């Protein structure tokens, strides 16, 4: 990811902006990398004609080639217009809230692996309500405990779909 405060040289604006060319190049290169993975593995399983017809890599090999060519074009075009590129990806004011959402979300998913879904969900909702909504504690607690509880009832009790549970739920006997 590009950092929002990265001085991009050409712009001298008050608010630091990230130009589109940076993320464009990075995404293009990542896709080229993926294309290389697709091609190399297709070559491993065989891209030609086997005893019973086309081999396993026959179709993905061409998919990988087209992917490599088209992402290569995007990278090339980005590099060729590098100096003239003015398109703005996002300003700093826009990127900050995106990361304010993304970072807790990553922590949430990691926490889910160890703690099950209910406790991290309550914490995520509670964190957002306090940090960004400025709600009073009683309402925050009510919503952040109430919502996972509703999901528990709907999924586990009504539709009988089990959701991931952690040590807390085990202690409670679920």
């Amino acid at each position, binding site marked *: 990811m590009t950092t929002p405060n990265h001085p991009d040289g050409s712009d001298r604006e008050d608010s630091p902006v990230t130009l589109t060319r940076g993320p464009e190049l990075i995404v293009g290169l990542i896709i080229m990398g993926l294309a290389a993975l697709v091609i190399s593995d297709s070559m491993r399983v065989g891209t030609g004609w086997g005893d019973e017809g086309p081999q396993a890599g026959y179709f993905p090999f061409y998919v990988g080639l087209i992917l490599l060519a088209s992402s290569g074009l995007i990278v090339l075009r980005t590099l060729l217009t590098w100096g003239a590129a003015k398109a703005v990806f996002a300003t700093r004011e826009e990127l900050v809230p*995106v990361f304010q959402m993304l970072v807790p979300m990553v922590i949430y998913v990691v926490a889910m692996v160890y703690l099950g879904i209910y406790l991290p969900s309550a914490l995520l909702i509670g964190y957002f*309500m306090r940090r960004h909504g400025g709600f009073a504690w009683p309402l925050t607690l009510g919503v952040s405990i109430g*919502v996972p509880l509703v999901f528990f009832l709907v999924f586990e009790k009504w539709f009988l779909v089990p959701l991931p549970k952690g040590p807390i739920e085990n202690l409670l006997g679920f």
Partner: protein
Amino acid sequence: MEEVNNLFGGFAVALTLPNILYMLIGITLGVLIGVLPGLGGANGIAILLPLTFSMDPTSAIIMLSCIYWGALFGGAITSILFNIPGEPWSVATTFDGYPMAQQGKAAQALTAAFTSSFIGAFFAVALITFLAPVLAKFALNFGPAEYFAVQLLTFCSFVGMSKEPPTKVIVAMMLGFALAAVGMDTVTGQLRMTYGFPVLLKGFDFLIAVIGLFGIGEILLTMEEGLAFKGKSAKLNPKVVWETWKTLPQYWLTFLRSTAIGCWMGITPGGATPASFMSYGIAQRMSKEPESFGKGQIEGVLAPETAAHAAGTSALLPMLTLGIPGSPTAAVLLGGLMIWGLQPGPMLFVEHKDFVWGLIASMYLGNIVGLLVVLTTVPYWAAFLRIPFSVIAPVIVVICAIGAYTVHSAMFDVVMMLVFGVVGYLFKKLKYPMAPLVLALVLGDMAEASFRQSMLLSQGDVSIFWSNKLVGAISSLAMLMLIWPLLGSMKSLVSRKAT
């Protein structure tokens, strides 16, 4: 009139008490999904799909398709009252819908939007009723080469008709095909692109991709825009509805034109969003007073809403008859059908008549129920949007996580959802289209299978795709679609030289 008889049989299937109840639940959930940012028709259905696994397939698909109708209706509410399109296809509705609300004509705008959605959908369902059996019968004779040609046409149409740069459409599409190929090869049983990771054996499920790309990605985008909900309130009373309805017949030509655009864009995978924009643009161009558009012209609400609903509905036609979905939401419904063991395609019309006609009948009923529900409950939905985003956003993240987990009860899927979410955000910002990625992921295995079977038949000779008139015509059309952007840029080059 075999279709009419079948349709009445379908009504008998759909008009049972539990099914009508599922319709109501579906519509209500759908409107909720349409109103909330970050939840849309495609990922909303993807999240709710696991809940229907234990249901009877007919009831399940009725509920799921009703969620879709509900989402189509719901998108208009936020566009008109809050100037926030709840769904991408209702962006064009904000152009005139929000000015109307500002002028105190919110009720008229909403009535117009709901009614035109209903009309668009109704015509599209009628089209499905009479065209689907014909198309299905026709497709019964399709061999692998024909199937691959139709799939090729679907994907090439994306290149030809998207407003995104062609290279990016192709990248998105090929990425979808590559992701679809991960896991065990269905023909040889060999493992592909798993690179020794056991979690990759199953491959990537497109439901996870849909939830991440459209759900998490949308939340990140909404954060960036820094939402402040400042909306108009609305109350619909029967008098305003009636008064508005009386003015609508004079716009019959707009309805007709928008329906035609919508149906065309829905069957070919243009989708509801471009259909709504195109319809708005044409309505403006054809209007006697084009300058009144954007300032609260009722036609500016009618045109995009009719087209969006017509496109959204008719996207189910190729899904049911050929097994090729015309939109991401149709793809999710297709995924549902396959989970219940129903293989969409021409054989569905032969082997599961009850199911097909029950579904088609439910489209009529669902849209009537939907219209009644939204007309009577608008104020409550507007209240939902007054809940601050700091509460809605984490709740939607939790819903998406639950949805991703329940697909296969796997934590890896939740992690992948997050990855797809970031990809969705970056793709949206960098103007990569997401629909081709999702459709390629869904159709990847099928396209590969039909391609390999064709190659097997012809011993590796691609001329099989031009071996008879039918397959040749489809393949040629596909090639035309593929080079369409090139033709366009050549034309503009020539005209620039001429001036």
